[in-house]
């Protein structure tokens, strides 16, 4: 039972449609909660309280108010902008982020498309985000936007290599690219998780993947594409209202994607950490989402702790540190897998 909807409703057009909009129902509340966590975590790290008034208890309604504000804002299209591409770009960015959700197994009973090449597909569709950002930067007709877009492309293309190499090590151990199979290979207690397998090489792989995935979500310390002290807001400088909200939502959707993929590859995905205790299709959903939320918290934590990288440091880290380590790791993990 890979998809409970097809189990109950059979296969057909409406089933496919329902399957494909289901992750959206998760993304919206998750993005609101993550926005609030980000506001509060950043505030407490800087020794302030953050939003305290909106909604009463610790400003819980602040993200709702922000969304209402964004929806009411005037939609401004600069006169000199390339109108067609300017309108298309945020949609393309969100399509790229959302397409990855098709292959994420949220629970043993729910995956949009249980394809054999799940993880390969997720790596491939993230390329559409790069093009959307390039399109936004160029269509805005603004030098900051263009510079931000160029930085994004350089950064994403560079960091795709260590992250793909890290994923490759896990694929060798699991012997499959199907995310459901990779997950099933880590069942049982938490010491069966791949993060603790082939110790310590797969844990190093996880660290490489996590650093590269931070860069792929364009978040600090890898936020030079939107570096607000140099580029105003990078590729989305000119965007306002709902179109800006699309970029914002895509960023949070991306954060969840990379965290979910890290969870699926290294931390057992929908498996319970305690063997058969609290495991099952619905608990699977709970475990995957809570493990991914922990990683999202770590992302927020790092963002507000570390200063921004310079461009040359960024390239140095990707090409001279992460890529050689990932290659050496692949060699060792592969040798171990063959000799075992």
């Amino acid at each position: 039972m890979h998809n409970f909807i097809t189990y109950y409703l059979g296969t057909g057009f409406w089933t496919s449609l329902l399957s494909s909009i289901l992750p959206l129902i998760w993304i919206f509340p998750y993005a609101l909660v993550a926005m609030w966590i980000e506001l509060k975590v950043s505030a407490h790290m800087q020794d302030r309280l953050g939003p305290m008034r909106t909604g009463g208890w610790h400003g819980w309604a602040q993200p709702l108010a922000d969304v209402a504000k964004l929806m009411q804002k005037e939609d401004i299209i600069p006169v000199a902008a390339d109108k067609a591409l300017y309108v298309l770009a945020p949609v393309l960015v969100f399509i790229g982020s959302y397409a990855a959700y098709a292959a994420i197994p949220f629970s043993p009973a729910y995956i949009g498309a249980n394809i054999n090449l799940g993880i390969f597909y997720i790596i491939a569709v993230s390329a559409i985000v790069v093009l959307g950002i390039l399109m936004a930067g160029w269509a805005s007709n603004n030098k900051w936007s263009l510079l931000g877009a160029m930085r994004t492309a350089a950064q994403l293309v560079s960091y795709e290599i260590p992250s793909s190499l890290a994923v490759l090590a896990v694929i060798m151990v699991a012997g499959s690219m199907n995310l459901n199979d990779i997950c099933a290979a880590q069942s049982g207690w938490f010491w069966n998780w791949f993060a603790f397998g082939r110790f310590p090489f797969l844990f190093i792989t996880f660290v490489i993947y996590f650093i590269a995935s931070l860069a792929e979500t364009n978040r600090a310390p890898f936020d030079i594409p939107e570096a607000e002290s140099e580029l105003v807001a990078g590729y989305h400088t000119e965007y306002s209202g709902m179109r800006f909200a699309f970029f914002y939502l895509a960023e949070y959707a991306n954060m969840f994607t990379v965290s979910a993929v890290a969870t699926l590859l290294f931390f057992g995905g929908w498996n319970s950490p305690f063997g058969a205790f609290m495991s099952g299709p619905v608990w699977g959903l709970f475990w995957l989402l809570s493990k991914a939320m922990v990683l999202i918290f770590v992302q927020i934590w790092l963002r507000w702790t570390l200063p921004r990288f310079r461009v040359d440091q960024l390239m140095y880290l990707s090409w001279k540190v992460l890529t050689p380590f990932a290659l050496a790791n692949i060699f060792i993990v592969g040798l171990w897998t063959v000799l075992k």
Partner: protein
Amino acid sequence: MNWYDIAFYAFAIVTVVSAVGVVFSRNILYAAFALLFTFFGIAALYVLLTADFIAITQILLYVGGILVLIIFGVMLTSRAFNVEVKRGLLKRIPAVLVVGAMAGTLIGVLTTTQWPSSNFSPYEDTARPIGALLMTQFVLPFELASVLLLVALIGAVIIARREKERGAQL
């Protein structure tokens, strides 16, 4: 006409219309972005032929690699945006010969091939047999391609470094 046919025609129209856009666009960046939809449509057609590995590789290499590189190159070239792509007719006779030969070959293949028209068949694991074949029967072309890429990579680095040194001397 079932959902499979509708999907096929929809993706075929996307592919052909965007390909026409690539050829006839006056703005070089519009052509590059139209190419995105062409690649995407072709990948979708591969999926409909149950060639999932080729479809995903198409997106990874052509959209994520080549197209990003093209757009990056266009954006780095100063004043490439405002230059109108030349669309006049040049060297008519060789052009007609080449295009005629190409069209003749394509039409010949199109009319003589027996097209298997079957309904949607379930997906099989395609990555495993492709990987096994690349490591056994086609290992020589595979290794040759990787050596070629390595040579190209080293060549690019050498050319880039030489230009940098020349720039430093000036």
